[in-house]
């Protein structure tokens, strides 16, 4: 009797050790394959992303023909960057038109969307003090709903001239941009939201808001640096 008992308890123990071995073994194999694929594709992906960013910069600044990257130093001054920029450094891209005049500045911003982080790029014109272009670099928003922030023409029209003018003190925005309900836009600093993409369009508003609050005063103050640079 006792012997039978111990056999009964022995059997499941052996089984679960087998299960454990299978799952752990499989986990190790799978992890190894993912790491290999990641390492193998990494240089290509980075190259592609850099090319996509380059294209996006030309999209968000109308009329630009050349660009210069500026690096933000720890004491909040902008300096022209060389060819090799540290990946974690904060940068903005100044775009120049045919005559070499400053056409606008492209700034990258990111924040939490409905699903995962949203990365966007917007173009700022320091003369008119307006946002002149907008492009979604990375998003995993729900297809058919949240991803309207990338292609909805009415929503994108908001960024053809979004007012981000500064107060007289030159450090705060007169009217920080804000997302309102679809069709309720009455002021030039408001962003018309999208029905069916409420959270995503609000997230875009919040991203633009926090990024402009921080960058616009800096870009205005250091316009001279951005203007007087021989472009490449």
């Amino acid at each position, binding site marked *: 009797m006792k012997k039978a008992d111990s056999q009964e308890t022995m059997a499941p123990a052996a089984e679960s050790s087998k299960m454990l071995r299978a799952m752990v073994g499989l986990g190790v194999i799978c992890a190894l394959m993912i790491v290999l694929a990641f390492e193998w594709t990494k240089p290509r992906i980075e190259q592609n992303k850099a090319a996509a960013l380059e294209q996006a910069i030309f999209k968000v600044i109308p009329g630009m023909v050349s660009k210069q990257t500026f690096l933000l130093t720890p004491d909040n001054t902008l300096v022209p960057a060389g060819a090799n920029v540290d990946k974690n450094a904060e940068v903005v891209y100044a775009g120049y038109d045919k005559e070499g005049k400053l056409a606008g500045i492209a700034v990258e911003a990111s924040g939490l969307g409905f699903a995962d982080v949203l990365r966007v790029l917007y173009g700022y014109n320091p003369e008119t003090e307006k946002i002149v272009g907008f492009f979604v670099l990375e998003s995993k928003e729900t297809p058919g709903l949240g*991803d309207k922030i990338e292609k909805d023409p009415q929503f994108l029209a908001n960024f053809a001239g979004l007012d981000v003018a500064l107060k007289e003190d030159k450090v705060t925005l007169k009217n920080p941009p804000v997302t309102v309900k679809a069709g309720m836009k009455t002021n030039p600093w408001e962003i018309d939201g999208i029905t069916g993409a409420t959270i995503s369009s609000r997230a875009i508003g919040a991203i633009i808001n926090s990024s402009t609050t921080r960058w616009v005063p800096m870009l205005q103050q250091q316009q001279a640096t951005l203007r007087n640079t021989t472009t490449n």
Partner: protein
Amino acid sequence: MGKPNTPSTNSGFWANLRESPSTDDFIKGLWRENPVFVQVLGMCPTLAVSNTTMNALAMGLATTFVLLMSNMLVSSLRFFIPKQVRIASYILIIATFVTITDYMIQAISVDLHKSLGAFISLIVVNCLILGRAEAFASKNTIGKSFLDGLGMGLGFTFALICLGAVREIMGNGTLLGFGVLPGNFQEWIVMILPAGGFFTLALWLLLFNALKEKRAQA
């Protein structure tokens, strides 16, 4: 599924093992047991990513790759994976290959990755892949599973292209980005919207069933 696979009783299991790969393993997925038109599996990507032919082709090939690799790995580990944890193991294997595919598509083209968007990660839950792992690869040799995965994957790609081509021509007036209809054609926007996916799928299913019936009568 047309004919059920032998249940994994001991005799059936070993009987299956001795069978050598046949062309039928490959052919059945293309037509007789087509994953979309006959088994009606994997509807989420079928309806969502078939709005253009290019998307349909890319999605089909990505799924084929995942299906092929997961079928082969599941088949080669079929004695190693205990029955109680098989589903978890299959999902782990499928998720691994989907992640690898995701990296590869990013390396090929960022634009393509953007237009397929969240649907690449959703290949993990495509019931076609799990279905083939459970119903076929876990009971058959690597050779047979390879052919099965290839056939099913290409059948899936074929079905997606059928849908994508119709939707792109009707909804956008183009095929693979080239204009194919006269300029004064008024596009049916609804065809590239989600509703158009349902219409097109219904029409293709109608056609397939009509063909099947005709053949049965003959």
